[in-house]
């Protein structure tokens, strides 16, 4: 009997596989493809105080082993999320993590305050790392003082688990992790997308309307692994690793490097049942290698 369960601090998950925000809608979009209760956790699209239509089109572009996106946090807003989306999520037997963003420091707190009155949420993932909005986002997430301030505000409002999602678009990501650790964060997730850009040489126009965008997919995985390594070396905070995970071996790479959980993002687009397959494959891997508890391999990197 293989035990796939992991603990992200006080957040207990039946397995380490979560869905990355913005790649899994509000969950229900993926209900035709597998039983979502199999997930370790489900992280929603970013929720903001007001509904957002998002950025102009084109918003997406395919690149070598990856993709650019600049969606601009299009979402239904916190009120509609609670009324229309949360009831479905509440019925699932998996950890529900709501991803939250604001355009001012106080707005982060306001969104969490409204969500905190609703049942059925296990944790918040705080998006201080979106590269595709003019205010907030990566501008907050690349400033350790502001990121710490947002963390403190949210920790005062809620007793639920608070996970801070970090951007790789900084010189030293470990400084950000140390800052949020001191501010009381329960965990960090990393990495959000890398800022990237692509140009159509025929029209000489950027392939994304907002010009620069976030790069995701297998192309960024080695960068993500290095960032997880850096954060694991410098803090005791539990880490949830993401960036280009396409299969169970990619997931293992993050776990071995020091992540206690992983998120699958871009791969959901092409293989909407991929999380379910990764969970199965992790179990087979443990059986084959006689590892009774998957968590034994967390941070088992040999250097």
């Amino acid at each position, binding site marked *: 009997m293989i035990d796939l369960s992991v603990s992200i601090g006080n957040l207990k998950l039946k397995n380490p596989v979560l869905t990355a925000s913005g*790649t*899994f*809608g509000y969950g229900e*979009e*993926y209900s*035709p*493809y597998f039983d979502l209760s199999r997930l370790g956790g489900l992280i929603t699209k970013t929720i903001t105080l007001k509904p957002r*239509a*998002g950025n102009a*089109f*084109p*918003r*997406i*572009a*395919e690149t*070598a*082993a*990856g*993709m650019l*996106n600049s*969606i601009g946090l*299009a979402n239904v807003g916190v009120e509609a999320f609670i009324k229309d989306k949360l009831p479905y999520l509440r019925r699932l037997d998996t950890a529900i993590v709501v991803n939250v963003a604001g355009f001012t420091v106080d707005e982060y707190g306001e969104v969490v305050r409204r969500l905190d009155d609703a049942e059925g949420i296990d944790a918040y993932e705080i998006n201080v790392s979106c590269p595709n909005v003019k205010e907030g986002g990566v501008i907050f997430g690349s400033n350790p003082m502001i990121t710490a301030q947002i963390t403190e505000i949210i920790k005062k409002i809620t007793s639920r688990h608070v996970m801070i999602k970090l951007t790789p678009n900084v010189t030293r990501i470990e400084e950000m992790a140390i800052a949020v650790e001191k501010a009381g964060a329960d965990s960090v997730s990393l990495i959000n997308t890398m800022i990237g850009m692509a140009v159509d040489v025929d029209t000489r126009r950027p392939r994304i309307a907002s010009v620069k965008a976030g790069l995701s*997919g*297998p192309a960024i995985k080695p960068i993500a692994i290095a960032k997880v390594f850096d954060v694991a070396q410098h803090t005791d905070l539990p880490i949830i690793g993401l960036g280009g995970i*396409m299969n169970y071996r990619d997931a293992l790479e993050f776990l071995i490097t020091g992540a206690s959980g992983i998120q699958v993002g*871009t791969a*959901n*687009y*092409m*293989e*909407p*049942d991929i999380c379910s397959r990764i969970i199965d494959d992790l179990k087979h891997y443990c059986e084959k290698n006689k590892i009774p508890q998957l968590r034994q391999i967390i941070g088992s990197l040999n250097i």
Partner: protein
Amino acid sequence: MKNRSEPDLIHYPPSIYECTIRDVAEFTSNIYRIRFESEAISNHSRPGQFINIKVSDDLNPLWRRPFSIHDVNHRENTADILFKVIGQGTELMSQMQAAQNLNFIGPLGNSFDLPEDGKENAIIIAGGIGIAPFMLLCRRLKEKNVSIHLFWGGRDESDFYLLEEFERSGANLHLSTEDGSVGYKGFVTSLCEAEIHDILKSGTKNMIYACGPNPMLHGISEIAQRIDVPCQISLETLMACGLGACLGCGVKRRTEETSYYYVCKDGPVFYSDEVDLSD
């Protein structure tokens, strides 16, 4: 504004399928048809719906590629897609061969509203490979005894194929080419505008169906509005997921400036007065 019909309550859920390719046919001008074995698509898809095909087991290209369901055959349990080679994904697809596997997700998206039985006219307008969804639509319209006028525009004669099959499916063909080598010389929108009034006289109810480049669809939307005939258009966009998650396939809503429909889940079929294609 007419509201699109809600998805069927018994709407067949999409799933991931690995099926066998029966046949790959090459027509003209880099146009290919892949016929594959799929009971789910042959028996449960509706005209206008699409499938999202995995074109490579490699990481390049990364995304699946969406294609309208071109035709189905219930007895053979097969379905067809029709496509033009325009890039890396379609190039790889053109190299697929019979007996190989085809991995796809479907059926996805909404479908064309069909008229009630009776004395009706369907005016179908296709630009180039925009013909793809209309074989299946013609078959369903013919079953309802709808009179079908298919306007199809191309650059030259090499842009037409399967003409006899369309006629067998009940379509009266009206062809146009930019160089005048076949049919009317000029754009298909001009041909349609010239002939549509005679067609409208013959029916009590009329419906326009269109698929092609966005500027063509925009032109047809304006004609439809002018003559007050409902018009359903099938849109093509980039899609990373095809299932409503990535929010990459937006089209502007006609009513509000900063609000979008998503082609994969709200479409791909829209009434022309719902969307703004003026850009």
